């Protein structure tokens, strides 16, 4: 079996074996998991370097079991087909990197009360299956593997109280039903094209059926990635799951998978019509704005990050929905960047959680002194996600904005609305910045609380993955236009020209130079005459409760009349498709349950009536 098969099978088999090893032997499980992840990560690197092409896994014809089984297995060669092209190579490589980093983190990073049973097994199974999903070319194989991921996602959140059980249930119901819708989509696609091979299909979106197929597959990709209106499981999941699970699935792997599939359906399998483009772009901007508005008012930092995990998807959808080569590369670049800083942020959140046990922003503060390393990395991630140059988040947002302006030069209706797309995207990034100011200052800046004096920095196995991710943020930002974009995306999309100019390396060099110069100025002038003093607060005594907590920062916004109304509705779950469809189903059941009056005669009448109807039909 060649490497394509190995990187799928080895983690899955190892994961299944780990079920047998008892939980008490944590060290052994850790070591085995780490070894398997390293092996698989190396495999993903080999896949990344390999020649693109179709790979058929050799499936032995099973003769012993008789003719019948042989006939069933006959078509399996077609079934086990994997597509190694630019897109899947890059996604596979990233999955490998994230799997490796998070398995290192999880050695110490999952605290005892957060631990879910058989974490290692589900971790490895998720890893192998994700890789298989990305490379699968056959839609049936794809949906099979994709479905397993819903289950492992469900098992990676420990359901120890009512709230987390509800979140887990919500997750599996939303993802599960979207998988069902996808199967419907695949069936329609098969009727229309007679093929279930992704690389063969190229369907024009003209008829109602083709629109339905597209919408069904889109629903699957949107639910996985977490775009409006199927996003609502993510904030609940991240609030309740351990940070390492959030960093692993909703922040990185699910994003990679969902966006990967979005690119596949938008660029490979369907030829999009103008109307579809308009709808996708609208969904993208709605995702950006509603999620970031919700993030702005969160007081729980894990939930805040969860809403951002939704909001950032909007940018990718926007980029990919543009349909141009520039837009596609921008969307993919943002996918990579987002996975990096978002899983980094979740790991930072994990450090904070395990060091302090707190998840509310207003109970934290001043930790930059106690956890300097976590702070610096957290700051880098926060600046990246807010799109501050020269970090990587800026580079990909810059590409998306350019893509939008470029798109505006075309004459279509969606193109004429370019200012709208651009304005919402930029406003979203300003609001992202605002909510990350809250995140950073609420946790790390300001004065430290009395009960936090004993907090200690996390250990090296938790810091190393974060540091690697932070370095990736810097590297992908600084060398964006000069090196990474041509290197990573030209193989996927073909060469393209930038619309604007961003000399990332030069500007970064100048910023570093200014930091050095600034340090020299301080050394030359300031240090001699530096002294510490208590803050000036107009003569009042400063105490912990007298401060101005970050949670009150944006009350001006959430209390403005119109937004106050909308926020109230949002808290009640008006925009949550899960709650709305739950209401709808309960309402429909209501009619049925009212028939259950417990009177024997009524039941008999129903049974008799039913019999008559059946007889009438059969006769």
């Amino acid at each position, binding site marked *: 079996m060649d490497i394509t098969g190995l990187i799928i099978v080895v983690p899955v088999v190892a994961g299944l074996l780990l079920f047998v090893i008892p939980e008490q032997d944590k060290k052994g499980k850790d070591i085995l998991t780490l070894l398997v992840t390293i092996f698989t990560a190396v495999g993903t690197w080999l896949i990344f370097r390999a020649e693109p092409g179709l790979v058929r896994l050799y499936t032995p014809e099973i003769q012993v079991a008789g003719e019948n089984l042989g006939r069933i297995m006959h078509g399996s060669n077609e079934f086990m087909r994997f597509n190694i092209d630019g897109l899947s190579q890059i996604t596979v490589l990233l999955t490998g990197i994230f799997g490796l980093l998070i398995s290192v983190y999880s050695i110490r990073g999952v605290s005892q009360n957060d631990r879910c049973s058989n974490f290692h097994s589900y971790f490895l199974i998720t890893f192998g299956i994700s890789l298989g999903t990305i490379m699968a070319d056959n839609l049936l194989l794809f949906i099979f593997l994709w479905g397993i991921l819903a289950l492992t996602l469900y098992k990676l959140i420990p359901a120890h109280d009512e709230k987390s059980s509800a979140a887990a249930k919500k997750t599996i119901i939303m993802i599960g039903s979207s998988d069902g819708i996808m199967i419907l989509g695949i069936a329609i696609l098969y009727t229309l094209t007679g093929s279930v091979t992704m690389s063969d299909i190229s369907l024009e979106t003209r008829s109602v059926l083709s629109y339905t197929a597209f919408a069904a597959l889109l629903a699957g990709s949107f639910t996985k990635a977490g775009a409006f209106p199927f996003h609502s499981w993510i904030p609940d999941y991240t609030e309740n799951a351990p940070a390492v699970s959030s960093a692993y699935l909703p922040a990185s792997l699910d994003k990679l998978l969902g966006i990967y599939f979005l690119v596949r359906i938008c660029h490979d399998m369907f030829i999009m019509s103008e109307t579809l483009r308009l709808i996708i772009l609208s969904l993208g901007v709605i995702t950006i704005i509603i999620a970031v508005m919700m993030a702005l008012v969160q007081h729980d930092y894990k939930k805040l990050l969860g809403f951002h995990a939704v909001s950032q998807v909007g940018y990718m959808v926007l980029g990919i929905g543009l349909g141009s080569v520039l837009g596609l590369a921008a969307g993919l670049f943002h996918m990579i960047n987002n996975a990096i800083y978002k899983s980094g942020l979740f790991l930072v959140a994990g450090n904070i959680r395990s060091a302090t046990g707190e998840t509310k922003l207003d109970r934290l503060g001043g930790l930059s002194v106690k956890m300097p390393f976590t702070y610096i990395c957290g700051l880098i991630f926060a600046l990246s996600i807010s*799109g*501050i140059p020269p970090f990587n988040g800026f580079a990909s947002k810059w590409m998306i904005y350019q893509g939008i302006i470029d798109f505006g030069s075309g004459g279509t209706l969606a193109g004429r609305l370019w200012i709208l797309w651009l304005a919402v995207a930029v406003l979203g990034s300003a609001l992202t910045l605002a909510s990350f100011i809250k995140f950073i200052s609420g946790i790390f800046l300001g004065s430290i609380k009395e009960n936090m004096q004993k907090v200690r920095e996390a250990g090296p196995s938790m810091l190393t993955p974060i540091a690697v991710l932070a370095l990736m943020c810097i590297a992908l930002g600084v060398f964006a236009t000069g090196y990474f974009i041509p290197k990573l995306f030209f193989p996927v999309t073909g060469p393209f020209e930038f619309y604007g100019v961003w000399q990332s390396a030069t*500007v970064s060099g100048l910023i570093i130079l200014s930091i050095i110069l600034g340090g020299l*100025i301080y050394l030359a002038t300031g240090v001699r005459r530096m002294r510490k003093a208590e*803050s000036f607060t107009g003569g009042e005594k400063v105490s912990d409760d007298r401060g101005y907590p970050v949670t009150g920062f944006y009350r001006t916004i959430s209390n403005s009349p119109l937004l106050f109304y909308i926020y109230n509705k949002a808290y009640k779950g008006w925009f949550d498709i899960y709650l709305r469809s739950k209401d709808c189903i309960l309402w429909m059941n209501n009619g049925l349950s009212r028939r259950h009056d417990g009177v024997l005669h009524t039941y008999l009448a129903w049974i008799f009536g039913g019999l008559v109807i059946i007889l009438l039909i059969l006769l």
Partner: protein
Amino acid sequence: MAENLFYFLVFPGLLFAGVVGGLLSWFDRKVTAWVQFRRGPVLMQPFYDFLKLLLVKETIVPARGSVLTFLSAPVLALSGASISAALILLPAFGITSGFRGDIIVIFYLLTIPSISYVTGALASGNPLASVGASREIKLLIGFELTLLLIFATVIMKSGMNISLYEIIAYQQQNGALIGSLSGVLLFIPLIFCIQAKLGMVPFDIAEAETELSGGAFIEYSGPPYAMIKFTKYIMLFVLPALAVVLLLGGLSLTGTSILWSVLKILAVVLLLTLIRNTNPRLKVGQAMRFFFIWMNALVLIAIILTYSGL
């Protein structure tokens, strides 16, 4: 690289922009004095202020804050301001060599000073600074959208160009963008955005000397405060220059047109000074509403007019 360093550190970046900005700050203070029937400061006063802070005054750091973040914020603010100064002024003066960046890059680099102020203020751990920081960031949310819409309309009016060079070239061929009705409509919100970005009355909400005693800057002293002052000088030159580049046809360094360029900048600064001397400070909610509803409405009208060719 040496060329880029020169552009960044000497001309037209850090040093040049700072000196011109200092002179403009003197102009602003002098006009304010005239408005209030005072004599006003001497020409070199802004530089005396700066040098005194840098060389004479001691540095006091907050005892309960994050010192390193507190001290690095002014450096990053100055860095962001100088890079955007170079990126705006190089095209403005028609210098085609050296590093460049498009209008989106400039838009984002110009937010670095605000973010640095906010981070520095929050790092000080002073509750008054926190109030200032929260106001600064809310104000930023308020005017950022308006500013972007103005940029987008300028891009549209100059034939979908996002390079300042192209925008200036377009104006040299077809006349300044302010020459049309939509151009005039754009100029008004642009002036208010600059006012807000510079933190001048009526948008000095984050500093609010009388109620927050300096707000975001309350804990700064000595060399770090000198850097903040210098950043403010640079911004006082760069933002009016950007307005001139976007709508008034750009600057020029040749022959008699130097005088014309100086007049353009002075006119914009004069406008800013007069607004700040004739208005009271707004509450942050009022300021946000002002931008979100009224200024955005103006820009939207301008966009519609642009689509219909006016």
